[in-house]
Each structure stands twice: as C-alpha cells, then as structure tokens.
C-alpha cells in the first residue's frame, strides 16, 4: 500500500529556521491569550503571543455590541472596547508579539526530561520562526458549527452564512449580506445578529430554535428579539435549503420531543439569507497534533485544576478549552492559566509533585465537568453546564458512592456556564475514602 505524506510538520529537524527563547509562548491573541500572557508576564515570565491576524483582540473586534466587562471592569463595554483595555496593557509590557503569524506545529520533545522545552513553529510574511518555551498556553478560541455538521438537507446556494461570518461582513467589511434573513439557532451570536441585521435594514423573518427553549442568555432574548419584535420559534428547525444560485427560501418544520421533524408541519419561508448560530467548537487541531488529549464532551483539552493539559507544560484556556458565554469569564480563567504556566516555566509553582490523582466526571444533567483531573488538595473551581433547563436542581459531589456535598436547590439553564468552588476538605474526604474519581452530579428535584 502506498505511503501517504503526513500533514504534520516535522518541526525538530529544521536547522535553518531562526529560534527565539521565551518562558511562556501563548498561542492566540484574543481575550484568552492576552489575559494569559499578562498574567504570566506579571509573574515574571518572558512571554510571547502568536496571533494569526494583524491585530490583537480576536473575535471581539467584530463584536461591536455592548455587554462586555460587567464583571471584570464593573462597567458595560463593547467588544472592541473590552479588547482595547487588554491590548493597551499588553503594549505597555515587553511581551513579544508575533502578529500575522500562523502556528504550524508544537513539538514537545522528550516529555520525561526535566528541562524539556516546547518548540512552536510559526510562519508569517516575514518567514518561518521557532519559539521555545518551557510552557505553552493554548488560547486559539473556537469556530462555528457549519451547515454540514448539522446536516441541513437541500441545495447549496450562496446566502447561507454562519452568524459570525455575517457579523464580519457587516461589522468589519461594511457589506450587506442580503435583504431578508432567517436565523437558525438562538445562541447568543444568533440573537445579537438578529438585532444587528434589523438595525442595518435587513428584514429578519424569525429566529428558529430546535430546542424547546432559547439557547442564548435571557438578556439577549429580551434586548435583541423582544425589543425589536423579531419572533422566536421554538421546537422548529430548518429542514431544507431552497434555491439554485442564491438562496430563495428555507423550509422549516416543527420537531417532536426526540427533535425529529414532524411531517406535515413544513412551511416555506422566502428569504435570501440564512444565518446559522448552531454552536461553537473549540479549535483543537493544533492541540491534538501536539499530543493533547481531548474531552469528547467539551471537545477541549482534559486539564487539571491549574488548567494544565495531559502534556506537561501545555496549558489551555478560554474557548479552546470549553465554550464560554461571557468574555469576562474567559479573562478570569485565562489569568489562572497564564499564572500557572509562568509558575511551571519558572519552577516557582507548588504541585510539581502531584498531591493526588483524581478524575472528575459529570452525572445527572451536567453536560461536562472541568477540570477533568485534580492533582492538588486545594480549593478548586469546578465549571459545568447543564444539558437542559430545570426549575429546581442541586449540585452534588460524590466519591465512592458517598455524597460529600449537596448545594442549594435552584434553577439551572444550559445557556449559563456554572462555576462551583470545590473546597479542599471535600477533596481530602474523597481521598480518605480511597476514591480515584469525584462525580459532579446535577440532579433535578421532582417535587419542588
């Protein structure tokens, strides 16, 4: 059988490429990368940021709506304003910036060696370059799920856009993608684009949502749909794309409890534009190539409490780790990753020798639990998201079949990423029980 050329770049063997040494190399210059880089720099590390675009800021550059900074700055900012605060801070430091630079691969050398450094190979219009660092922070963000991934049948005309692409056309390129739009998916980007289109004179026929509830934040449903009279159709999805050259219409159908289209409920909605806001996927092709193990639930890396992946010295944060709903949360998480990466690189961190080895698994209606591993007996921030909305449920922490903790009964929504502080004493209790696994369970209360 013929041998195939691998797409992976053999980074180690090239000698002609110039190399620059750092303590921490951060991949991605969006909100996650900037926060991680600043935190690592503050901890005394020599830091580099590698960014594909010509500018720092990532996707925030096109998020011109307000709603950013409420928790981090106690002030409502637009995306570009929020980003600019961090861009200014980065510029005020000696953090090295490699803009317009695409990372081709991360080579981690021999993982067993204490002095192991990671080599990041990147290219830009200036040529190829290698950065070395004892620590690497993955902060590449996510991409939008496409029409193909959700398998919408029909033809393949122009006019079917992911919501983020339409946002780029409108907010960055000053171009109008069409006149009459249907939006599939009530995620936050879909809701924000419904308002944005309306403001730009694009008539929005409606937002259609497969689930029986809105997927975005409550405030966005109100501010973006209700205030502009855009109808939200729940338990309804697009079942056919119609039009040969440019989109002419979509067929929508109601769905049953198993989310299958109900025959006979089809309606044809004339439109020239279909925007898809049907989920985000962490962009981990680079991580996988570097040997990082992913959690099939988050599609991000499996990390420990310091946000370190299974490859020593490689950390992950922001939307490449798990999809967040607020940029402020990305910032907070990424500051932790940056500080931990610096501590690892400089050898100042605790936990060089793990205290323990516990895995964390979700149960009940919890869709995932992060971190997936705990290696230190210390207060640990657990993140999770529920799979469906409930009015009354409680968080329970279990180990070896024993309930170690039960939270207050309260409502939970899939649109909100939850954060739960796991006390050190609960981890200690789990270890005392001889458990190797902690279960984070979110259990609905039936009679409540």
């Amino acid at each position, binding site marked *: 059988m013929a041998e*195939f050329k691998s797409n992976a770049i053999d980074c180690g063997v090239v000698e002609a490429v110039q190399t620059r040494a750092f303590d921490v190399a951060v991949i991605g210059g969006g909100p996650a990368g900037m926060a991680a880089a600043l935190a690592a720099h503050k901890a005394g590390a020599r830091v580099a940021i590698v960014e594909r675009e010509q500018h720092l800021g990532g996707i925030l550059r096109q998020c011109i709506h307000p709603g950013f900074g409420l928790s981090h700055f106690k002030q409502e900012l637009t995306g570009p304003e929020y980003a600019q605060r961090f861009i200014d801070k980065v510029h005020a430091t000696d953090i090295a910036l490699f803009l317009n630079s695409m990372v081709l691969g991360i080579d981690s050398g021999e993982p067993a060696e204490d002095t192991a450094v990671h080599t990041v190979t990147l290219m830009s*219009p*200036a040529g190829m370059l290698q950065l070395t660092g004892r620590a690497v922070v993955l902060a590449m963000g996510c991409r939008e799920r496409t029409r*193909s991934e959700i398998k919408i*049948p029909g033809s393949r005309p122009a006019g079917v856009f992911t919501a983020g692409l339409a946002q780029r056309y409108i907010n960055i390129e000053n*171009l*109008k993608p069409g006149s009459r739009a249907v939006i599939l998916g009530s995620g936050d980007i879909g809701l924000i684009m419904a308002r944005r289109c309306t403001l730009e004179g694009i008539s929005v026929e409606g937002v259609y949502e497969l689930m029986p509830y809105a997927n975005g934040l409550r405030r966005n449903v109100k501010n973006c749909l209700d205030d502009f009279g855009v109808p939200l159709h729940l338990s309804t999805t697009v079942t056919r794309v119609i039009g040969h050259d440019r989109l002419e219409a979509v067929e929508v159908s109601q769905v049953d409890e198993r989310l299958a289209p109900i025959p006979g409920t089809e309606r044809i909605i004339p439109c020239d534009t279909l925007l898809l806001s049907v989920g985000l996927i962490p962009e981990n092709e680079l991580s996988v190539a570097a040997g990082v193990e992913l959690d099939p639930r988050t599609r991000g890396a499996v990390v420990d409490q310091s946000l370190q992946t299974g490859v020593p010295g490689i950390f992950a944060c922001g939307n490449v780790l798990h999809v967040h709903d607020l940029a402020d949360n990305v910032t907070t998480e990424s500051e932790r990753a940056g500080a931990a990466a610096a501590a690892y690189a400089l050898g100042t961190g605790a936990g060089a020798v793990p205290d323990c080895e516990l895995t964390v698994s979700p149960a009940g209606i919890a869709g995932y639990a992060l971190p997936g591993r705990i290696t230190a007996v210390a207060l640990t921030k657990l993140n999770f998201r529920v799979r469906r909305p409930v009015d009354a449920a409680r968080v329970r922490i279990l180990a070896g079949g024993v309930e170690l903790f039960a939270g207050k009964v309260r409502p939970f929504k899939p649109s909100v990423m939850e954060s739960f502080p796991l006390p050190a004493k609960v981890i200690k209790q789990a270890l005392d029980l001889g458990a190797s696994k902690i279960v984070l369970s979110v259990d609905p209360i039936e009679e409540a």
Partner: protein
Amino acid sequence: MTETFDIAIVGAGITGCAIARQLARFDLSICVVEAANDIALGASKANGGLVHAGYDPTPGTVKAQVNARGCELYGTWAQELGFLFCRTGSMVLGFNDEDRAHLEQLRRNGYVNGVPEQSIVGPDRIHELEPRASADATCALWCPSTGFVDPFEVAIAALENAIANGATFMRSATVEAIEVASSGDDARFTLATPAGNVRCRYLINAAGNGAADISHMAGAEEFQMVWRQGNIVVLDKEPRTLMPLYPVPTPVSKGVIVTGTVHGNTVITATAAVREPGDTQTYASDVNALLTGAHKLVPDLDTRRVVRAFAGGRPVIQGTNDFFIGQSAVVPGLFQAAGIQSPGVASAPAIAERMELVMREAGVELHERADWNPIRREPDDFDRAPLARKEELIESDPAWGQIVCRCETVPEAEIVAAIRRQPGAVSVEGVKRRCRAGMGRCQSGFCQSRLVTILARELGCDPSEVLLEDAGSWLVEGPLKGVR
C-alpha cells in the same frame, strides 16, 4: 462574432477536458465550449473521486473496455499533469458465503476486463491491509490497482495542459443551437452560444448530463437521459488515510463506499436514486443511508465530523447502463462521449484515448505537433510543501506567508495564483477547487470575506459582483446604508 476551429468539444467536465488534452498533441485547433463559468461544474465535481479498478462493469461493455485501461493510465497522467493520485488498492468486503460468491464473480469479471493482481483474501489479510475495516468481514476482493484523485484537479490539470498547448476555452457559453451544413464543408457545424458562435469541422459531444440535448440539437442520436442522483458526504481529515472499502455491489450501483481522499479526508459515496433532472439537493434519508452504510464497512468511523454533504446526477442513458463513445451514426463528423456515469472519472484518460482512435478510424487526420508539451507543472501547494520550500516561497513573495484559509493552510499568494492561472478561478468555489481555500472543516466561515476581497481585487470588480459559483450566486448585496 464567430470563431472557427478544427474541433469543438462541448463540455469542460473531466471527459471533455481529458479529450482536449489528448487531442492537443495534434496539429489541430481546439475549442472547449462550456455552459458554466468554470471547469468540472457538473457530474465531475459531484462524485467520490475513486479510480475504480474495473472489475465491476460487465465484460464486453464499453465501460469494461475503458475502466481498467483508464485506471492504468492514471499513473502516467498524474505524473505528466502534476495532480495527486494515490494508488492504494481497495477491498470489496464480504460478510457471508453469498457475498463470497459475488466476490468470485467480480474477480472473474476483473480478470476478463484486464484488472491486474486481484485476489480474494481472508480476515487476517483484510486487517493487515486496512486495520479499520469491519471485523465482521469474512472475505474481501483485494484489488491493488484501485486509487483515488481529486476529480476537479484532474479536469483542471488536463484543460490547463490543453490550453498551454494552444487550445481555447470558452466559458459561460451554453450551446443554444447547432447548425449543421451539408457534408464536405470545411467547418460544417456552427454552435450558437451567448459568448459568441463557434464553427468547427468536427464536433465532440462531452456534455455530461446535457449530452442528449447536444445530440438532439445536431440532429443525431436521440438519447433519453436519466438523472440517477447520488448524495456524497465528506468527513474531516484522519491521521491515517483510509483505503477504499466497497460493499458487494447492487445491480444499479456500487453501493455505499468509504474511501480516503488525496488530502486525507474521508468520503462516503454514494446513494443512487432516480430524481428530477437537475436536482442536486441532499436528502436526509440519503445522508443517513450513507452514514449507516459507512458504519458497516468502518465501524469506528466518526460520522459527526461532516465537513460537507453534496449531491449530483450521474449522466445515465436510459435503457443502457453503458457509455456511448463513437462517431454518430446519423451525423458524420459528430463524435459522442455520452452516458459517462460511473466509472467516468476512472475511465477518463482511456475515454480520451479511445476518442482519438475512433476519430482516426473515421478518417480524421491527426498529425503530431513537434512542440507538444505533455507536462503541466503542478502549482505550488503551500500546505504540502516541505518546510524549506515554504521558506523559499515566502522569501520570493511575503504573500506566501499570509495565510487566508486556516483549515487548509492556504496563503494569499496561492489564491492569487489560482485566479491568475489559465483558465483561472472566477468564483469563490473556483478558488476552492483549485487550491482548497474554504474546503476545510469551517467551510469558509473564517476566510470567505477575505476571498471575496481578493477576488474583487484580482477580477477588478465590486464585492457585490463576486460569485460563490455561477451566475446569480452573489454573496453580498453591496455596501451597508450610510457606508459608501
């Protein structure tokens, strides 16, 4: 405006382009007339890219004569024309004794059709050849000559080579009428198209699904075409490219096949259902049938990672399952390559070779040119280039270091080269077919607006005039209100 040529070929699909390439070595003027605005926009872009070995066609048919020969020629064609071709071999998997009997039959067909080195193998060998093949398979027809190509790349490379040797390409030139003068005339055929009229002495019909219309317009054979539609699914790249795995075929099709591609993706191809002519819609039932069928062959296939689903129609002549390659029995000087359904891609080089032979036999004088160049230099593919070549390219022009498509690592310079090639890309999809920008997992979510900017700049038009594919497929309406 009327231009006169020795030969006009109607249709720039893989068949027409291969014939143009074959005939460009002779001292004849050639024009390829295409209804669409680019190469390979019909059945040639909507297939699995498999170069079938040739055990499938019934011995004695035209298909049987050109399939194995086409498969054989691909090695030379790939070298000369600089396109990617992986000859991996393939297996038809059998799961029981009845299947085994079918495999024996296929092997006998293959033997008669000239397929080399086939053998029937058992479970151990199956898993040695393709570890991901179903463990339930008890036997397989192992066929080392099978391979796969990127079908657009083959058509594009063949036409680029023909053009480099002097052929002309007319795009957006739907043939609306054909006038046939009395025989003896030096240029007896006149094709009327919106892009101008074309007169020619010999007419070659390679119009794919439009072949019946062309034949009818010329007053020749009345073919009835059937639109045997197929859905196809492309999955994301795998660490190791899969060998083509086939089920035991049905009477109408080869069944749902799983195969790797030259770029490391996995393709599941294809369903077969007679539908309305022109229907290129995908159907939920077809896509589900593909995913189910694929799981039978490769149980661990991650079918969530769909990059693209698409559909096309196989040009099938009603009443025969065979190709028609020959001079019209009614209109001398008209040569037809009609009904080129599956295995059209696999057969293309041999169809071209056979067309040359048919024309010679019909008395067409073919004199080889002294300056014919069989080589088409393969354009630089940045993603596949070794690191040293990447550096060289960036040094030659910084635009080689400006990545536009992140999923497939396509820099701006490669996109510009795709637009400037002869014939070059004139649409976003045309760019994609030439250099893969936008073909990856994000399906141009990140790069489409940049592609529009580059195309508008290179073609000297407004972004609102940039097309996704053919006429009418505009991507943006124009500037926003208040922004001029």
